[in-house]
């Protein structure tokens, strides 16, 4: 009896070890939870030349959160296509253009983000669209899509009535909830304006990064009315995307372009239409739209340096930006006069010329505004100084002649 038990245990142990060994080097699909269900499951990446300190990377997957997320219906292997063994240390970053193993319900075909990934690649943020040679710092999908548990946000809203209406016809409650959340979340803004500005500023306000890519850091935006309204939580005022990639005008953040590109919504050609889009500056004219700079680049400080250098006849590299802008305006103007623009037939060329005429030298602009501010600083100091002096004398005379006051 004892011998039989020992043999059984030995066989069981061998079978277990065999199955583990087999799964380790072959089929691991469906076993992700075996490890990733444990909170604290992760590694510490030691510091390298590129990484200044040790970094903890957690690989724990909360099942509830994951199933409630955008990708909750997708299997791990749909995205992590190169996982074929345990442990899997040297995985390639996920390609968001991979075909997913779910069907796109409107056409019943395999779903993929490929078209959006292609758009991004061709955009100013993509490897093809970026004008700079260094492509290493370009943003990837995950830099913007931080993949919050979006669906839980929607589920917290009072959607019971709407869901009940849907469930009248659609039998599967799970499907109804998923579909409702999918649509409902897209009806609402996914990020408020404050979050959009903070997200874009992550890179575009980084002076060092922008310098590296020959771009100007966005420094003047925080002092604009738009920024102040956003800081109060006003969602009607334009954030970065409302001007640079307005969905309402047929643009998309995935197809964002440089302002120098004629197709960009903030190009000189399209600015008027962008500024006067619905709920914004209705009735805006060319002079308002074409020379408006919501966030001046170069900023006020740089412009003043240029002005100072001009006075001292010192060449300044930052002045190249202004010269380039002026040259571009001249080129556009010349194109309009030559009738070489593609809108000559409907008289748009005339508009192009008109749009370029009310250009004021940004250095002169900055100097005037700086002068006014300085004037008020001086005048306020002088007037208040006089008032305070007069007041002090009055107090002194009152203290000196208390009886006079009491009489």
């Amino acid at each position, binding site marked *: 009896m004892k011998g039989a038990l020992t043999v059984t245990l030995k066989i069981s142990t061998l079978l277990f070890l065999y199955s583990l060994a087999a799964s380790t080097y072959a089929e691991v699909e469906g076993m992700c939870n075996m490890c990733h269900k444990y909170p604290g499951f992760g590694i510490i990446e030691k510091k390298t030349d590129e990484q200044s300190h040790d970094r903890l990377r957690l690989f724990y997957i909360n099942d509830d959160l994951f199933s409630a997320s955008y990708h909750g219906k997708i299997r791990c292997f749909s995205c992590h296509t190169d996982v074929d063994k345990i442990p899997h240390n040297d995985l390639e970053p996920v390609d968001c253009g991979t075909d997913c193993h779910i069907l796109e319900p409107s056409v019943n075909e395999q779903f993929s983000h490929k078209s959006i990934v292609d758009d991004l690649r061709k955009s100013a943020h993509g490897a093809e669209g970026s004008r700079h040679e260094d492509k290493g710092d370009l943003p990837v999908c995950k830099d913007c899509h931080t993949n919050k548990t979006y669906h839980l946000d929607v589920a917290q809203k009072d959607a019971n009535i709407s869901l009940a209406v849907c469930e009248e016809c659609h039998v599967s409650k799970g499907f109804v909830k998923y579909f409702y959340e999918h649509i409902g979340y897209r009806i609402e803004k996914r990020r408020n304006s404050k979050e959009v500005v903070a997200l874009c500023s992550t890179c575009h306000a980084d002076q060092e990064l922008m310098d590296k890519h020959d771009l100007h850091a966005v420094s003047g935006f925080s002092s604009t009315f738009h920024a102040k309204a956003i800081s109060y939580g006003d*969602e009607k005022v334009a954030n970065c995307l409302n001007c640079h990639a307005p969905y309402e005008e047929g643009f998309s953040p995935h197809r964002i372009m440089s302002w120098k590109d004629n197709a960009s919504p903030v190009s000189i050609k399209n600015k008027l239409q962008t500024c006067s889009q619905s709920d914004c500056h209705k009735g805006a004219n060319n002079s308002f739209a074409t020379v408006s700079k919501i966030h001046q680049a170069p900023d006020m400080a740089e412009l003043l340096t240029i002005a100072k250098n001009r006075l001292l006849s010192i060449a300044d590299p930052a002045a190249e930006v202004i010269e380039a802008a002026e040259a571009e305006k001249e080129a556009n103007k010349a194109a309009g006069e030559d009738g070489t623009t593609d809108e000559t037939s409907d008289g748009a060329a005339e508009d192009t010329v008109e749009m370029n005429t009310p250009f004021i030298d940004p250095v002169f602009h900055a100097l005037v505004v700086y002068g006014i501010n300085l004037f008020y600083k001086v005048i*306020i100091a002088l007037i208040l100084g006089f*008032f305070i002096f007069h*007041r002090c004398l*009055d107090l002194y005379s009152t203290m000196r002649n208390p009886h006079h006051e*009491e009489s």
Partner: protein
Amino acid sequence: MSSHNGTRQFVRLTLNQRIQHAIMFISTILLTITGFMLQADQGFIDLFGSYAEDVFEMRSLIHRIAGVAISAVCAYHLYYIFTTEEGKSWAVDMIPRGRDGTDLVQNMKFMMGLRKDRPKLARFFYMEKVEYWSVYIGMFLVISTGVIMWTEWIWPVFFLDVSGAFHLGEATLAAAAIIVGHLFSVHYSPHVYPMNRAFIDGMIGEDLMKDEHGEWYEEVLEKEKAHTENSDRRHFSSDRRMSSPDE
């Protein structure tokens, strides 16, 4: 002392003037608060919590309403000083004259203890004239630049930026001048502690009248004397306790 000390009371501000002043100071307070909210830092904005967006919307609305109100009272004031006797008298007495310079020097000497008595000042002394005419300059600038910014879509950004700089600069100057120059001198002053009540009931006491407007006090008494003599001749007697300078 109080602004109303003395055996007699004189009319300093008529009801019409007090209403103009009231609309002006209420609008100014609202404009200052709602205007400077655009300069507030994030820490202040966060105090509004989830109401911040509504507060911002109300801020914008209140600023415009108060702007219209103060523009209307300015327009009315121009009509008032050109068409009414009371207004004309006010404007004429406000016109700067050479004597204001002498008053300034003599008053400074008095306050420094270099002169025994304060000079006899007119109905409006140099400081009040500076404040009054500053309001014309200030109002012209803030109203015109305010209109430009309100109709932003028709202006190039250069004009908007210049207008914004003037609007903010002038508003800052006005707010500071009102607090330091006007509020503390005219209201919260040892002469009239805790406040000069003329802006409420329009009256000024004889003591303050003599001290701050000695020349005007004498003018009023002269007028009153002439008036009494005329009345006596018409066998009309009066025991009036109040006098108006505009009579």
